[in-house]
């Protein structure tokens, strides 16, 4: 026989009282743990939602980027690299550059590690009269696209562009702009004479609404030969892949670091349209993300506010409940307490009987309350206990706090009734009964 077995047997005998107390603590702590878990789960979910949104934004931006790249590619070149001494006024007046640079320049760009240019397209353009047709044309000799080896993702196994904007034109072939083909009455597959030489028309381009419509493209070497410009070109068309406004203009700096004797003409309207569209899309996603973060933050604050009110109220309610429960238990056991005092039980032992019982109630209530709270709190936020996120909700500090706090709460609540039991005057009880 020990004080422990007296407590144990009393609990077993009067289990209704014990179970009610235990449930009271379990419900109170369940609410506390549930609330804390709910907040933690909310934070986890918020993090996940924000991560997902950010990922979604990033993917959308990447997709957009890809779309823009394709669109830009389809829109044609947006940069023209010219010799440094080329007058832009003269270029506009003549419709073609009139200063030259070595064809090797394109090689230098191709291998120079340039970041923001792609689809390098060296040209030798001359504004001339097509003598056989008596038409003003822009004659453009080209050797096809030269790859930028800094951007291998766009190249095939042979080191050529997978989706080139323009193909090389073989010797003996020409390509015609829409308007000049129409004016000359020429169609694809026809043979035309140009500067006393015969060429097969391999392609007639669709109307673009610019000087391309009056351009005749042919092999670079042939144009160099006609104009006695061996090894020379007068422009390198390229596609600039700038994604942000702040990068706008950087390409000239980049090119000039490799080719100091050049200048860069950016076709601003196309570039700006692209950048603005991209910026708007990015802003739209960021706004959506900000709204989501703000909404979840607000929801979290509302829940925190509720928890701040709920937790003290619930704990106070549980304490009051336990107080009356133990007080009732003391009242019911007055005769037993009196006889215990009579046979030699001191005040400390009598208090111990009630306080140990309260502490046991607290421990058992804490275990049940914790399990209840974490399961329901997590489930409320859609986190089931077998999911990996559930592990993040297990907070050792909270477990420690609950396992110490619950018995402490029960002991504090039971202190006055236990003291009352210890101070019961056995003479009064024995005389009254």
């Amino acid at each position, binding site marked *: 026989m*020990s004080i422990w077995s*007296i407590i144990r047997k009393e609990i077993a005998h009067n289990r209704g009282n014990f179970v009610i107390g235990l449930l009271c603590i379990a419900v109170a702590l369940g609410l506390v743990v549930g609330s804390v878990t709910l907040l933690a789960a909310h934070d986890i979910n918020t993090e996940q939602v924000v991560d997902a949104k950010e990922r979604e934004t990033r993917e959308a931006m990447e997709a957009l980027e890809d779309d823009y790249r394709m669109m830009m590619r389809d829109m044609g070149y947006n940069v023209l690299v010219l010799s440094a001494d080329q007058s832009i006024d003269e270029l506009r007046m003549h419709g073609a550059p009139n200063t030259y640079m070595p064809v090797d320049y394109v090689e230098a760009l191709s291998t120079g590690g340039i970041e923001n240019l792609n689809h390098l397209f060296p040209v030798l353009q001359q504004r001339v009269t097509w003598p056989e047709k008596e038409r003003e044309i822009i004659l453009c000799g080209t050797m096809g696209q030269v790859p930028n080896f800094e951007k291998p993702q766009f190249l095939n196994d042979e080191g050529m562009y997978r989706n080139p904007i323009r193909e090389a034109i073989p010797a003996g072939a020409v390509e015609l702009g829409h308007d000049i083909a129409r004016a000359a009455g020429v169609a694809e597959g026809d043979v035309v004479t140009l500067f006393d030489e015969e060429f097969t028309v391999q392609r007639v381009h669709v109307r673009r609404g610019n000087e391309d419509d009056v351009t005749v493209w042919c092999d670079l070497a042939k144009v160099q030969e006609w104009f006695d410009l061996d090894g020379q070109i007068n422009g390198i068309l390229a596609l600039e892949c700038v994604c942000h406004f702040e990068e706008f203009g950087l390409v000239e700096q980049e090119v000039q670091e490799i080719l100091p004797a050049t200048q860069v003409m950016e076709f601003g309207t196309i570039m700006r349209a692209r950048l603005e569209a991209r910026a708007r899309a990015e802003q739209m996603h960021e706004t959506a993300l900000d709204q989501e973060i703000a909404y979840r933050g607000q929801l979290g604050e509302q829940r925190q506010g509720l928890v701040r009110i709920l937790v003290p109220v619930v704990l106070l309610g549980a304490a009051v409940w336990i107080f009356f429960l133990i007080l009732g238990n003391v009242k019911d056991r007055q*005769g*037993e307490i*009196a006889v215990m005092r*009579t*046979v030699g039980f001191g*005040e400390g032992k009598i208090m111990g009987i009630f306080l140990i019982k309260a502490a046991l109630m607290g421990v058992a209530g804490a275990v049940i309350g914790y399990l209840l709270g974490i399961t329901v709190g997590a489930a409320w936020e859609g986190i089931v206990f077998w999911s990996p996120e559930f592990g993040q909700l297990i907070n050792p500090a909270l477990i420690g706090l609950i396992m110490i706090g619950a018995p402490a709460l029960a002991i504090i609540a039971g202190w006055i009734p236990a003291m009352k039991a210890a101070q019961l005057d*056995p003479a009064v009880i024995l005389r009254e009964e």
Partner: protein
Amino acid sequence: MTENAVLRTEDLSKFYGRTGKQVTALENVSIQVEPTTFKVIRGPSGSGKSTLLLAAGGLLHPDAGRVLVREEDLYAFSPGQRTVFRGQNIGFVFQQFYLVPYLSVLENVKMPGVALDIPDLDERAAGLVERFRLGHRVDHFPSELSTGERQRVALARALVAEPGILLADEPTGNLDMENEQIIVDCLREYARNGGAVLMATHGLRTDGFDQVYQLKDGKLQE
């Protein structure tokens, strides 16, 4: 007055209530109980018998006078010391038994051992259970016992610490004739074996007791 009395009260007085509406429960009561004696306090209800026993047992502080148990002044002790001293030296039996409902017969008998250091507790408890013919009831709970059996359990519990004196407050008040005789015989046997018994009763029987104190309105009658 003999020097070897287990219990002595000297001019014990106890009053209940406030000044002006005061009720005298005991007035200058002096008694003594020696070892091997079985003494009785007799008197009608409200005569002060229970008050005398409670005061004599260290449970009710008297307003005047002294209580000496084995020559120790009970009320000179601190409350804590008095509790331990009482447990070791004074046994109580009440009319209401006050058995602990969730403990078995044997556990009820052994209960004082939780509070006091009682040597050979198990043997003593087992011996008392047998002596009071409760051997077949050791694992039973109070609710499963007859009234007489309950009082015998209470008596065994009172004797397990082998106190010098047993104070019995109407221990046969709830019992039939047969059980009354059994309890009285048990008390008598205890006295014969060296114990001292002071029993309060409102019964009329006076035979077989070493001394009968007559109490009326808190005063001993000559």
